């Protein structure tokens, strides 16, 4: 993998916008997501992508980040002990020419979206 780790996907913010527009995530879920992202950001996950899985109703969140080797153990410790509803963490080397950088995927779910149509938009 040789793309620049500083550069995110061209469409990631648009994908996020579409998800936020159409997913009907309620206030509590959105606030949870903000907390997770804010926590991870403070722990040093800077180059981060946010993906909501499941359209039209998201049932999981993935936060992808690039982490430098010297911060990895602190960040993993924080993720493993403090992330609400953690489902899994994947870490792998970013690769040549950045051997000191790791790619981290944090899977979080399920959202607390009510099951019976609350927040699903206005009926026709």
């Amino acid at each position, binding site marked *: 993998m040789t793309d620049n780790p500083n550069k995110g996907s061209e469409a990631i*913010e648009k994908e996020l916008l579409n998800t936020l527009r159409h997913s009907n995530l309620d206030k509590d879920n959105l606030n949870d997501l903000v907390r997770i992202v804010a926590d991870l950001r*403070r722990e040093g996950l800077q180059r981060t992508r946010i993906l909501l899985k499941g359209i039209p109703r998201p049932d999981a969140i993935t936060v992808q980040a690039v982490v430098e080797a010297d911060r990895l153990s602190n960040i993993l410790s924080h993720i493993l002990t403090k992330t609400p509803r953690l489902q899994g963490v994947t870490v792998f080397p970013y690769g040549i020419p950045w051997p000191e950088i790791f790619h981290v995927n944090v899977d979080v779910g399920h959202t607390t979206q009510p099951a019976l149509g609350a927040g699903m938009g206005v009926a026709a």
Partner: protein
Amino acid sequence: MSSPSTEPKLCTLSGQRIVQIHPSLRCNLRCQHCYSSSGPWIKTELDPAPVCSLVSDAARMGYEVISVSGGEPFLYSGLAQVLRHCKSLGLRTTVTTNGYFLQPRWLEPVRECIDVLAISLDGPRELHDEMRAMPGAFDRLCAGLECVRAHRMNFGLIHTVTGRTWEHMVWLAEFAAQQGSRLLQFHPLEMAGRAEQKLPGQHPEEDVLAKAYLLAFALALKYSGTMNIQLDLLETAYAVAQPHLVYADELAEGWEERSPADLLSLIVLEGDGTVVPISYDFSRRFQICNLQRQSLAASWPAFLRETYPAYRNLCRTLFQELTSGNRPLFNWYEQIVAYSRTAPLRSATPETEGLLARAS
């Protein structure tokens, strides 16, 4: 303007020591979200002499940045005089404009005295013109941006986030980057001034603030290294870790010796000469002075003795309320201004009694 940071600038307070000057509420536009209800019918403005005097005091008191707003600052007859005075004292300057007067005739007299032009943008053409209540305002802004670039001036764009406009944040960032902006600031709408009448239901509630946060985060990453993305919200956890940012910490021994700018990093001069802490429209119960009657430097000791303890108390009480809830984000400026108007004046708590005793 310094190079854009490679880190997202989210939910932080700047830490800069700023004097915000609103020398007049005269404006050529009647924007729907205007917090100061500025407009063309207002003819009054502050004489440049007391404004320059305030700037001199502020420089001596430790303030570093003078930010001129309005009204529309390019309609203020004393703009060039005030800005030149700022630069003569080595201060940094910013001017916040609606973008209508970005033409050589207006820019050339002041271009050397402005470090950053902050230009308001409400969204794509139709939305911008609607919010500005002025057909053609967007096209005029685009032409103005070309002129600003031709004059090699640093500029940033400021957007007021409403319950409707958050969906344009990605477009706004693309537009700002294409235009060569070094900063895109998202400021949540505050229901003050004209916004109260013109934009009912547009106040960004918790869900919109969360969406704005997530989008701003993604945009900050995308544009890191080329354009700063700033969102005027405070993360609750961040605030709890750094309560001094909102004046909610305990004052350490010897606080009286700290510079005024250290004790109050943002002060605001309003169009009638009143100087208040923190934000436009802050309750006059906490005013520092009115330039028509007394200078900033002369009034500071009395403010410190009689009002500052109550101000700290106000900040601390609100801070405790905001951080004890379940919200991950809040708009400190909006909350503290509203609270300053409704909260009882409390300066007789054990903490503030101590402050008062030490100050006197």
